[in-house]
């Protein structure tokens, strides 16, 4: 597997995206590398431990194993993206915000419960914006247009 959780793959950007609440409940976990289930659980717990102890005066970046987590807190939810240490911090930080704005628009003032009850739609939103660990589409207008079109196919 060339994409092991290691230095070897230099052109992999996002390793995973996690949305967790403060209690550590996962609201979305999107993996862009192969992990087995135990490893995933471990990563989820580690990320939670690393991120929740930081306060607002801290940076939005934190070193994590051989990678870094770019994260941002929205109300009770932490949106975390794990990327290579050489990746552009601010681009991913705004990538998160862009994603959150799309969710907000799509779910009309998104709240945590929207993500719970519509978990299967959240995956669609993610795939529209991030694919194969890369940014796929950044235009909110385009993403929302596509999502509304899909919605109409119900």
């Amino acid at each position: 597997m060339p994409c092991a959780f290691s230095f070897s793959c230099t052109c992999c950007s996002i390793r995973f995206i996690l949305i967790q609440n403060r209690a550590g409940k996962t609201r979305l976990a999107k993996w862009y590398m192969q992990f087995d289930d135990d490893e995933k659980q471990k990563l989820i717990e580690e990320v939670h431990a690393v991120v929740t102890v930081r306060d607002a005066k801290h940076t939005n970046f934190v070193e994590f194993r051989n990678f870094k987590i770019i994260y941002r807190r929205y109300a009770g939810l932490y949106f975390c993206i794990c990327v290579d240490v050489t990746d552009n911090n601010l681009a991913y930080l705004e990538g998160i915000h862009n994603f959150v704005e799309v969710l907000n628009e799509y779910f009309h003032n998104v709240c945590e419960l929207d993500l719970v009850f519509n978990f299967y739609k959240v995956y669609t939103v993610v795939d529209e914006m991030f694919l194969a660990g890369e940014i796929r589409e950044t235009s909110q207008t385009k993403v929302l247009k596509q999502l509304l079109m899909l919605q109409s196919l119900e």
Partner: protein
Amino acid sequence: MPAVSKGDGMRGLAVFISDIRNCKSKEAEIKRINKELANIRSKFKGDKALDGYSKKKYVCKLLFIFLLGHDIDFGHMEAVNLLSSNKYTEKQIGYLFISVLVNSNSELIRLINNAIKNDLSSRNPTFMCLALHCIANVGSREMAEAFAGEIPRILVAGDTMDSVKQSAALCLLRLYKASPDLVLMGEWTSRVVHLLNDQHMGVVTAAISLITCLSSKNPDEFKTCVSLAVSRLSRIVSSASTDLQDYTYYFVPAPWLSCKLLRLLQCYPPPEDGAVKGRLVECLETILNKAQEPPKSKKVQHSNAKNAILFEAISLIIHYDSEPNLLVRACNQLGQFLQHRETNLRYLALESMCTLASSEFSHEAVKTHIETVINALKTERDVSVRQRAADLLYAMCDRSNAKQIVAEMLSYLETADYSIREEMVLKVAILAEKYAVDYSWYVDTILNLIRIAGDYVSEEVWYRVIQIVINRDDVQGYAAKTVFEALQAPACHENMVKVGGYILGEFGNLIAGDPRSSPLVQFNLLHSKFHLCSVPTRALLLSAYIKFINLFPETKATIQEVLRSDSQIRNSDVELQQRAVEYLKLSSIASTDVLATVLEEMPPFPERESSILAKLKKKKGPGAVSVELEDGKERGELNGGGDRAGDAAIAASNASTPSPSADLLGLRSAAPVSGATPSAGSLLVDVFSEAGPAATSAGVNDDGFLSSAPPTAASEDPAPPLPESDELLNKFVCKNNGVLFENQLLQIGIKSEYRQNLGRMYLFYGNKTSVQFVSFNTTVSCPGELQSQLNVQTKTVEPLVEGGAQVQQVINIECLTDFIDAPLLNIKFRYGGALQNISLKLPVTINKFFQPTEMAAADFFQRWKQLSQPQQEAQKIFKASHGMDTEVLKAKLLGLGTALLENVDPNPENYVCAGVIQTKAQQVGCLLRLEPNAQAQMYRLTLRSSKDTVSQRVCDLLAEQF
């Protein structure tokens, strides 16, 4: 409860989720889930065909249950059925289920690939995207085989919709990363590169990730992308903030695409074409200019997006490292950020400046910010920012500011966060050595380091100060005086005692002329610390004492008295006792000449790379240490120094210290193997790390089956299995857990469990050294006909195993039919440059697939008679090679996996067992009878089974056990 959006209802799902959320306890939740699972199972099994909607709903519920963390073992087929639905929502749930619960079940993969193939050729962009996303999410080899040829076609076809192109580009990227051999770009290269010109910015955004990856692997084939990327970037950078409409983010035109373009350019050197280069420089200047313009919005999103581009541009400028003007401008810009109110920006500026510091063009410019950086080190609240400040200080350090920086780092150490102290200590030690003009400053600095952060001063650091003092005679007197003074402190760190003991033992004579530090005063001072120290330090002090006897004959009587005391000569620690005895004897019988020769001053150390630097590199990963020791002349080395009177003795004792191998097995999680090099012995042995295995030559082995050579085979081919591997296989016939293998470098622990014809084995590879293993790679192979008898699947392990760390590998085994040979495990890695290549037999034996069978005496005999054909029986009569203790025998027979049947054999001394060997092809019933003869110390073992090969194999295996 939020409104579930109208169209797709799935009320049942919403109700179920609500129910789960309302569960008061974990038990209630599990109960509710089990009820739901039963319901879904009955629906799926029911006679009534389910409509698409119900199927979608149930599959979605299963998915939800899985995401809650429960196992799902059915529903895959229904999910696959959904893939061929014509309704988007049904298809989507089907694909989602497949993507999340990737299952390598071969029959399903074929069905899934079929559905994907249909959707890809459907010309329906929505379906095509779903299929592409599924491939991108799963990215398995089977999918690459099926679609790697098709997707480039979709990507470049003129009539493909933009959104499909976006997905196709990234889907291809995923396949390329997973199976580069299957993705052949040849004929598509130029058309893919030209996607950079696509009108649709989203297509460019997606395609550029693919192009960047391909360029980094095949720069020549893709080099035409440079000029295209520059012109695209130029168009974006020069556009007004509203030109790009959809792609303008908080008044910043296409920030993500700009970053990706700048990153693509970092795969290449500066453009050779003057016009292209001019255009690019213009872009970079524009980006730097924009940073100075007043912001178009107060929102942090605006400044973040703008600065994301700026930092990426600075990365490119640093990558080129050829434009002094741009480098200095970048540095000034970062300098402004150093005092920005946003912590993020301060952090990123420190980080980015660190790389600027290593460029000759901007090094001086970076240095002008020293005060700000020092201030950051003192005042930043976030430890990661302080860490960056420390990194930057280290990077900007040169002869002109070394004293200031080292002083600041030392004073910061007193309050530094624990997590970064060790690294700080290493950095201070390196800078102090590198920029030492007078070595008394160096000695002072290191002793200060020990005083302030003694616990974090690793062995490398204090070894190093000793190396340098020994190699530079102009500093020896000063060093002796300084350590003598430092030792006066009532409480001093043990590392200080070590350095003090060593230096006074060597150079105490240089200060002995002063009555305040006369030989006896020195000795008494050292000895006053003795009792509070650990064993290795005491051992070192004893060596210092014997050196004192040589340096100062007047101390002989006093020291002999000390050596002779019960607490030394009868010390419970073997090492101390041995030293005391040997030194006492040496001092009493050797002539002064002999003594002077044996205890002569240490010769200078040969020069090699600083062991501290090596340690820092190891901590930070290769490439992270930008400062190299430049002046070879000035440094001495401890490395490689062979014999040191007492220390060779330590090395010897180290080698015979048993390793804590028992620890290995207790760990389920990958906890690091504790102290691979036993601390008692690490005094000076560790420094010889380059000497590698040879330094600790007397290999450690608990089980005696590996007393032979360390694996030094240099070939890349898997080594032939070790001669011991059969013996080792036998060790595991009746047990599932234990240490499979151990040498000086590596320990392999094993845990395994078997059910029916399936087994799972966990291998734990423990790095016993303090140096990382690289290119660590393990393969399991089934030689010859075993290939068709066992199905063995392994998960790859990470190629890096840190010193002292342990990695785990899971191996899944399926027994297809009965077998004789064992799978081979080959382990290859590089340790200090040398390839290690070890092959072992994996202890998978046929008996692991036994299911015990209980039966009454009558049954047993009836079956025994049924198996009366001569080839069905195997028998061995052999001599006992172990004790014939009943309990041990019983335990072994149970360990074999069979049921031990009581009251069957009329002779109570005999044992009979029964079991069924489970293979995929068939079940083989097996009966066993073991008749011990205690008087003759012999056994007769008889096996009967429905298959001759099985009888023989089990008989052979078991005969080795008693």
